């Protein structure tokens, strides 16, 4: 059996999405900026996609800027806002457990003379809103806090953070890459000025994302070379990608959220029945598809490879799978002990995940954990 439980890394492109994209490679291949009929056909598809996406998040079409994905959207939002507002102030607020596409951009800006406050995170995986209020200064120009965390799936109270920023007149960005299709998303209700999206996290194609930019907010573009995308992101438009993006949104179904939540709860309960296993992050306000569990006395990469040997794909916050030797910055920010952070595994479900696959996974995890503990000097 092959079981894919790494849907927070990427998802299977829905067959309907691939079908909808295909004509834009071989038939309607025009450049959307050309004014002939080939270009017009591409432009029409691009603008339709833009409209669909804007409706989904309750925005206007010209507030959607297509990008290459979540990382570019985060870069464009944070650097774009920081550079546009640098005469107003140099202070930025973020959290300690953001995605590297946010953290590393903030660190780069620090080197350029901006000042960044990294908010602490509770044990349950939520940003401390009181600390956020206290951190705001007269020269704070930007707050960036993610909607749902990519490792532990906790969903922040974006509406609350948004209203604080709105009151103070501070631009607010949220990385919403993990939350699309899994929890309601309304940019007006959430009071966000900038929001990052990526299509491949919800059965769309890789290589396309978007940045929502509220009309009244000005950001500075990062690339030169054309006036595409409201003059914020030059380059020939990725029409097939945009079509894939909007088609994937169209396929989202609330029933799938219910189904994933039930399977997630079942998986959490069964995994926590294993001795010395603990859930990372709150069980409430958590993405419907995220399970992140630490198994004491063993190491995550070994668990991952043991499961891979049985056909199951998961991921780990363990240092041993990456170039650096510290375990997950997200788990450490939560106060998880380094030894437990090393033994953490993320299981991320999709609408395609079945009960049979989850049952197979539960049995496999029990076997792999037991075998690794047998050879561990610590257990």
């Amino acid at each position: 059996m092959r079981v894919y439980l790494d849907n927070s890394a990427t998802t299977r492109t829905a067959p309907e999405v691939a079908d909808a994209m295909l004509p834009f490679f071989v038939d309607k291949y025009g450049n959307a900026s050309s004014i002939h009929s080939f270009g017009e056909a591409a432009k029409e598809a691009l603008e339709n996609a833009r409209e669909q996406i804007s409706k989904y998040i309750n925005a206007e079409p010209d507030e959607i800027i297509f990008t290459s994905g979540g990382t570019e959207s985060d870069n464009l939002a944070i650097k774009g806002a920081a550079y546009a507002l640098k005469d107003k102030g140099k202070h930025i607020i973020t959290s300690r457990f953001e995605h590297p596409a946010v953290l590393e951009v903030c660190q780069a800006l620090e080197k350029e003379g901006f000042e960044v406050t990294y908010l602490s995170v509770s044990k349950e995986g939520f940003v401390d809103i009181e600390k956020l209020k206290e951190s705001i200064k007269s020269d704070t120009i930007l707050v960036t806090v993610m909607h749902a965390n990519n490792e532990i799936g906790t969903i922040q109270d974006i509406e609350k953070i948004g209203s604080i920023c709105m009151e103070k007149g501070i631009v607010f960005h949220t990385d919403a890459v993990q939350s699309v299709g899994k929890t309601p998303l309304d940019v007006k209700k959430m009071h966000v000025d900038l929001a990052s999206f990526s299509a491949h996290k919800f059965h769309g194609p890789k290589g396309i994302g978007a940045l929502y930019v509220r009309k009244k907010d000005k950001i500075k573009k990062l690339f030169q070379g054309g006036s595409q995308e409201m003059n914020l992101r030059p380059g020939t438009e990725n029409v097939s990608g945009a079509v894939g993006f909007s088609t994937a949104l169209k396929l989202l179904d609330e029933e799938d959220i219910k189904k994933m939540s039930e399977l997630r709860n079942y998986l959490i309960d069964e995994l926590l029945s294993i001795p010395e296993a603990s859930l990372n992050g709150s069980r409430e306000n958590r993405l419907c598809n995220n399970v992140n569990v630490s198994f004491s006395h063993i190491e995550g990469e070994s668990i991952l490879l043991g499961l891979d040997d049985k056909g199951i794909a998961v991921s780990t916050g363990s240092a041993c799978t990456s170039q650096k030797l510290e375990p997950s910055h997200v788990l450490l920010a939560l106060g998880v002990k380094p030894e437990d952070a090393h033994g953490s595994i993320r299981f991320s479900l999709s609408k395609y995940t079945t009960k049979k696959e989850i049952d197979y996974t539960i049995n496999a995890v029990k076997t792999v954990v037991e075998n690794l503990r047998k050879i561990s000097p610590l257990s």
Partner: protein
Amino acid sequence: MYSEKVLEHFKKPHNVGKMNDADGIGVVGNRACGDVMKLYIKVKDNKIIDIKFETMGCAAAIATSSIITDLAKGRTIEEALKITKDNIVDELEGLPPVKVHCSLLAIDALHAAIKDYKKKKQ
């Protein structure tokens, strides 16, 4: 990422387990770093006649523990002390650069076990 040989040793490690009558025990690593190796040796007439290990760590840590037990078994103490990082990496048909430190840890564990044996003998 890993060679077939590493995966083979990871999936079916050799000489795993505790040894109750060990003549020397070496423990190295640190659980906060995600790697702990414990190596047991049984020595007769200056030869390592039995060796066992217990490891908490990644696939490379488990595979290097397994291979060092193969390399050291049947060797004299002096021969065992001559096992190098390159011996381990070669035997495993290569290790990703970021994992080479695991082979050093295996050598440290063996040296610690031998040191413990020598200390106990005195």
